[in-house]
C-alpha cells in the first residue's frame, strides 16, 4: 500500500514569497548598479517611471502590461533587437522625459537657490555690506516660493509616469485635484519622501568624516580612503534604490487611490485640503533645510538641482 503525503497549502505560498524576495533583491542590486553613474541612472529613472505606471494600473485592478524589465523588451516582438534591448530603450526614453520634466518643474527655484547661495557668499567674501541683504532675501524668497511647487511634485511625478509624456508634468489642475482626492495618504507619502531626504543627507554628510572612520583613513592612506569611498557609495546607493522603490510603491498606491476617489466624486473638503497642503509644505521646508545643511557639509553645485529620491537616483558621493 503506498502512502500519500499531504502537501501543505502553504508551500506554493512560501515558494512564491521566496521567488518574490529573490526577484526584489535582484531588482535592488541591478537598479543600484545602474544608479552609480548619471547616464545609467537615467535608465534606472526610466525603469522606476515605467514601474510606477505599472503599479498604478495594478492598484487600480486594471489589466497591466508585463512588469517592466531593465534591459529586455517585449518577448512577443517580431524583432530580435526589440526582444533583447527593447526595455533598455524604453527605460532610457522614459528616463529622459521624466528627468527633463522634473528639472523643468523645479528649475525656477533650484536655480535661485544656487544663485542665492553662490552670490550671497561671494558678496559676503567681498564684504559688500551695501547689498548684504540682497542674496539672502532672494534665497529665502526662492525657498518659500518653492514650497507650493514641491508640495505638488510627488503627485506630478506619478501623473507623468501614468501618462508617459513630458507635458503631463505641468497639468497642474489635474495634479492638484489628485492631491485633494488623495487626502491623508498624500501627507504620509510626503513624510516618507522627507525621511528619504534625511537618508540622502547622511550619504552626503558621512564622507565628511570619512577620514576618521577607519584607522587606515586616519593615517591618510589615499588608496584606503578611495576604497572606503567606493564601498560607501555602493552601500549608500543600494540603500537609496531600495528606499526609492518603497517611495514609488507608495506613490503609485496614493495615485491610484486618488483616481478612485475622484471617480467616486469623493474629494477632500477645502479646509482639509488646505491643511494637508500646508503640512506638506512644512515638511518640504524641512527637506529644503536639509539640502542646505548638506551643501554646507559637502558642497556640490549639482545638488541644488537634483534630489535623488524623486529625481535622478544618483548620489553625489565619493
Amino acid at each position, binding site marked *: 500500500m503506498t502512502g500519500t503525503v499531504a502537501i501543505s497549502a502553504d508551500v506554493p505560498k512560501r515558494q512564491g514569497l521566496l521567488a518574490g524576495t529573490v526577484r526584489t533583491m535582484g531588482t535592488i542590486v541591478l537598479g543600484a548598479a545602474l544608479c552609480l553613474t548619471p547616464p545609467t541612472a537615467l535608465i534606472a529613472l526610466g525603469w522606476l517611471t515605467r514601474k510606477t505606471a505599472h503599479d498604478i494600473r495594478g492598484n487600480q485592478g486594471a489589466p497591466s502590461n508585463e512588469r517592466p524589465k531593465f534591459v529586455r523588451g517585449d518577448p512577443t516582438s517580431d524583432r530580435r533587437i526589440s526582444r533583447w534591448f527593447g526595455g533598455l530603450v524604453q527605460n532610457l526614453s522614459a528616463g529622459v522625459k521624466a528627468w527633463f520634466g522634473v528639472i523643468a518643474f523645479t528649475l525656477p527655484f533650484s536655480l535661485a537657490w544656487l544663485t542665492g547661495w553662490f552670490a550671497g557668499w561671494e558678496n559676503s*567674501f*567681498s564684504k559688500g555690506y551695501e547689498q548684504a541683504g540682497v542674496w539672502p532675501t532672494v534665497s529665502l524668497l526662492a525657498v518659500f516660493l518653492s514650497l507650493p511647487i514641491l508640495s505638488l511634485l510627488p503627485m506630478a511625478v506619478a501623473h507623468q509616469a501614468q501618462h508617459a509624456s513630458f507635458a503631463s508634468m505641468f497639468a497642474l489642475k489635474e495634479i492638484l485635484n489628485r492631491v485633494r482626492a488623495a487626502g491623508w495618504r498624500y501627507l504620509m507619502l510626503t513624510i516618507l519622501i522627507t525621511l528619504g531626504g534625511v537618508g540622502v543627507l547622511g550619504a552626503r554628510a558621512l*564622507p565628511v568624516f570619512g577620514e576618521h572612520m577607519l584607522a587606515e583613513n586616519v593615517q591618510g592612506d589615499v588608496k584606503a580612503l578611495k576604497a572606503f*569611498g567606493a564601498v560607501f557609495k555602493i552601500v549608500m546607493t543600494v540603500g537609496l534604490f531600495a528606499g526609492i522603490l518603497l517611495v514609488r510603491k507608495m506613490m503609485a498606491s496614493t495615485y491610484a487611490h486618488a483616481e478612485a476617489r475622484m471617480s467616486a466624486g469623493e474629494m477632500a473638503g477645502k479646509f482639509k485640503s488646505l491643511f494637508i497642503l500646508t503640512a506638506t509644505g512644512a515638511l518640504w521646508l524641512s527637506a529644503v533645510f536639509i539640502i542646505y545643511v548638506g551643501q554646507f557639509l559637502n*558642497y556640490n553645485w549639482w545638488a541644488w538641482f537634483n534630489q535623488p529620491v524623486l529625481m535622478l537616483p544618483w548620489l553625489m558621493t565619493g
Partner: protein
Amino acid sequence: MAVTRRRFNAALAASAATLQFGFNLTSARAAYRGPNVIIVRFGGGVRRAETIVPDTTWAPYLVNVLAKRGVLIPDVHIADIEGMDTSHAEGTINILTGRYAAWKDAGSKFLTPRIEPTAPTLFEYLRKAFDIAPHEVLLINGEDRPQEEFFSFARHKKFGGAFRAEVLSLYRYKRWLYQTLIAEGRAKSEQLENLAEQMKKFDKHTLPGRTPKANARLDRFWQHWRRDYRETGLINARGDQLLTELALRAMRQLKPRLMMINYQDPDYVHWGNASHYTRAIAVIDRGLRQLVETADHMDAYAGRTVFVVIPDCGRDSNSLLGIPFQHHFNTKSAHEIWALVAGPGIARGRVLDKPIDQSQIAATVGAVMGFKARYAEGDAISDLFS
C-alpha cells in the same frame, strides 16, 4: 639688531636668570632694544599645496621672494592630542602661548568658539620682560571675529591684563566711535540709537577684565582713521585687506615692536566656493608683500624686523568630497602646516627640512626678542639662526 646663535643662547640664559629671580636684575624693566617681530597668521586654515608648493601655490610672493630671505619650514605639525581641534582659535593660542590646550571655554556657541588663553601669550612675556608701552604690542583682528579679542592676554596669575596687547580692529573702532560721538554730543539721535544697539552686541563679546582701556595713542590712531575713512565703514578696505591696512597704518603711526595679524578669509571655503579659498590666499600674499616692503622702507623696521609667517591650522584633503579642502575637521592634512621666518639674524634662502611643532613658535619668538617663554612646551628652533 641681528639675532646670532651667541645672542640667542645669551638671551636664553638671561631670561632664565630673570625668571629665577622673578624680576629683572636691574629691578626695573629695561628698555627693549631687540628686533621687531611681525607674526602673520596665514589663517583661516590653509594647506601646504596652495601655499608653499611652488607648482600649485597661490602665494607667489611668499614662495618666490620672502622664502629666499629667510628659512622655510615645510613640515610643521600641529600635535594630535585627544580632545583638541584643528581650528583658528586653538591654533592661534598654540602659536601665542607655545602650549597645546592652554585655553578655557568662555561661552562658546555653535560656529562661534569663545576661548581664553590660560598660559601667558607672547605679548605678556614681552611686556613683562621689557618696558614696552601697550600700543607697541598689537593684535590686528578681523571685524567679524570679536572673539579674537580674547587673545590679547591670558588668564594667568603672574601675567594677565596688566601686560596685555592692544587690539586694532573695526570692532574696536566702532566702540571708540560710539564713545566719541556721545562725548562730542554731535551724533544724530538715529545714529546714536544704531550705535547703542551695536554697543549692546559688543557687550556680549566682552568678558570680565577685558573691556578695552583708554589709550591716548590709540585714540589718535582712530582719529586719523576717522578722518580718512569717516564713520560708515564703507570707505575703508574690507576683508583681509582691511587687516593689511590696519597693520600698515599701525607701523607708521604706532611703531609696534611686536605685532600679530590674524588673516582669516581662506576659511570662507567652508561654504563651498573653492575660489574663495584660493583668492583669499592670494590676498594674504599681497598683504604680506606690502608689510615687508613697508618695513623695508621705514627706519624703525628696515633691517631690524623678523617676520614669522605661520598658519593657524591646515585643511582637510578629503577625496570623498566635491571640495576636498572644504573643512578642517581634525584630519591628518589639517594638522600639516608650515612656517617661514625671515629677518636679521635668520639664515637666508634655506629650507629647514625637519619636523617642527607649532608649539615651538612661541619659544622661538622669545629667543629672537630676548625673553624666555617659560610656560611654552616647545623648544626654540635654533636651526633658524645664521
